[in-house]
């Protein structure tokens, strides 16, 4: 079953063409990674999936629901973690999660049990009554991730989700994504950490300057690049044309 259909989507900010004619389709239970250097259009694409940005052309559907026409219906099915989550700093961790639960209309018992479980799993117990303004970057990231999981979404949209997480929390997130995938939950996430993408993604989309340069499974990407047996980093560097960094390093070291 097709969960996410991104059809020929383009988006410009003034003269900057952030996303150009991008199309991606993801089946239920799949984990799709979006890779690309800074400014390649990954975050813009993910924000359009959520209906936070309006495409200049093209359309996006989540479980057949047009994100632009029925944004609220679409958002109910999505869990989102932005690149640098700015939370409500004046709330405590638990108050923020309570707010998100209420917005997603979870009943009192459900939200209590889920919030308690997640706080325990992410080792935030004992800190949940402190204001978020005093949290470290990693703790804020954990809260944002918990908030995305709370309402049991069918589609997870994660923008650099593992930023700032400690190894244990990162492992929990990766394992949880895998576990949920087996239950039919689909994930699309962007990352700069190629090892993570290689380890957990079923499919990979490489973006560069707003366009899709390559798409497929790891094996398909290797064969497209003619680099069988290479790492994702080598494939990525070749596809994006950024493989010649030696001269830059030498110039900087001078």
């Amino acid at each position, binding site marked *: 079953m097709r969960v996410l259909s991104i059809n020929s989507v383009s988006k410009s900010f003034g003269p900057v063409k952030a996303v150009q004619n991008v199309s991606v389709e993801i089946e239920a239970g799949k984990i799709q990674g979006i890779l690309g250097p800074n400014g390649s259009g990954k975050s813009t694409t993910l924000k359009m999936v959520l209906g936070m940005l309006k495409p200049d052309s093209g359309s996006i559907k989540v479980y057949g629901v047009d994100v632009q026409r029925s944004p609220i219906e679409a958002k*109910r099915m999505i869990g989102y973690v932005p690149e640098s989550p*700015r939370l409500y700093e004046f709330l405590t961790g638990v108050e923020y999660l309570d*707010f*998100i639960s*209420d917005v997603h*209309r979870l009943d009192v018992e459900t939200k*209590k049990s889920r919030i308690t479980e997640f706080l325990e799993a992410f080792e935030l117990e004992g800190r949940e*009554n*402190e204001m978020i303004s005093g949290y470290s970057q990693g703790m804020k990231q954990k809260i944002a991730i918990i908030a995305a999981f709370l309402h049991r979404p069918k589609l997870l949209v994660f923008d650099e989700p593992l930023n700032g997480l400690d190894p244990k929390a990162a492992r929990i997130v990766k394992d949880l994504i895998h576990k949920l995938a087996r239950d039919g939950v689909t994930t699309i996430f962007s990352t700069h950490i190629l090892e993570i993408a290689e380890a957990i993604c079923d499919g990979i989309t490489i973006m560069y300057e707003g366009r899709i340069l390559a798409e497929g499974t790891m094996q398909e990407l290797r064969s497209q690049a003619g680099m069988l047996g290479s790492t994702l980093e080598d494939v990525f560097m070749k596809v994006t044309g950024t493989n010649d960094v030696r001269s830059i390093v030498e110039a900087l070291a001078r």
Partner: protein
Amino acid sequence: MNLRLVYRLAMVLVVSQVRATRSRVRLRSFRRPIAIFAVSLTAFVLAFIVFWKIAPAISSVEEAGMALEDLTRQGLIGLPSFVIFFTILSGLLWELSYSAQFSSTDIINALPLSASEYVLGSSLSVAYSYSLIPAIGLGATLALGLYFHSIDLWMMTAVFTFIGTFLGAFVIEIVRAVMSRTSSAFYRRGGRFAIAIRLVGAVLILLVFQLAFNYRVMYILLQSVITGLTVAWFIPVAWPSLAIMESYQGDYVTAFTLAISSLVFMGAMFWVSVKLRERYWVPIPASIRISTAPYSPKVGFLGKLGFSSAESAIVKKDLRSLTRRREMARLLAIPVIILVSMLASFTSSGGSRLEFLAFSLVSFSLAVAIFSLVISMISIGQEASAIWNIYSSPIAPKEIVRAKLMLGFLISLAVLLVIFLAVGLLFRPSYQVLILFFFLGLSLAMAETSVGLMIGSKFPDFSEIPRSRFVTFSGGFVGTVAGLIVGGIVGAPAFIYAFVRQIFEPSEYSLAAVTVLTILLGVVFSLIAYKLSVIKISELLKELPT
């Protein structure tokens, strides 16, 4: 002290403000600091031309000419004191809006910049940003000063206005440090009680500073000084004006002494602000525990009233935002400042009990109206960069509007009840007056909250800069005008009734009819503004601001 660094810092602070507030202006020059200078210079020239043309026309009538000459003298003497008051009031309203979280993680804390360099740079940016009013005042007084051959007096006024602007800016730096100290002191304690005490403390600090530099009080004191030197000698902010007055009266030794004293006072304010910043600036946000109780969610009061869980969640969140964010204290201080300063001014000017009652009722209507307007006008922009939480959540525009209106209205209602009880107990007015003004307050709260939200959703300012205002400059202007018009229309029947009762028999104008008309007007404006707010929020939610 590196003055070049001070200047660069001041310009960075000005640029951050100019670019955030004029991001929609296409002309690039308007997004540069020079734009503020150009606007102030234009205002100076225009004020000069207008008063230069008006002066001969007014002076052609003998009595009016004498009155104008007297007004010119008062203006030349009073301008520096007014500028001090204006800078401090504007500063209290706008300069303390930077969130504690971001100011503590600001790159400025990591740079090799001394406290004195920071204070001077920040004060310079404040003086530069608020140069418009002094420019208008100086332009007008220059024209009048030239016409009445008082150019020497104007030159003194110009110098002292300059000094007054900086004096006001240094006072703002003092308040900034004191607020930081208050916040961190109570933050370390944690708990809901400490948060409440911190809020009350912040409001009191703002009130004390505002009253200490209240122009109206100063003006009354200056009037008494003009007929004979009295208390004003003991009020340092009056010294610049006193120096000009002594010079006008030919007592140059006293004028010189007061001028030097003014400079010394300004220096003292600078020294105090530097010392306070050095001592009380908190570079690391404290970890604040609100409670120790285990998480135990319940169906809240609003939920029982039929509000959706999303609406209740937004109301709860915004209430916490209002009571926990340091930059919000200035908003809660608005009704207190308006009431206390107006009543203080009126008390010091004398008046009968009946006049005092009428004056206090007008003051409280004004306080409720302004408070309701401001609270809802900033309710969208105060989401700041966390606005993505709203964009990514399944919340309908109507729910946002209902939640924001509900909070604005509930808080305004609480303010209204407190003021109403205070007025009722203090002055024991007739039941007719109480009924009329209670429903007037209620109608004003409804109408102004709705109008404020409509403006706030059309002109939100989500930027997190040292002087974020939550509503754009043009939004603030349009909102103030719209609020005045709506407030005037809603309040008209009640004020006309109060006026007519003084002249005619009460029976000629029914209290019930006036009350019903007032409520009706409040409801009509609320409904119109509600519909428009839903449209504006729907438009806003179409795309995350970039």
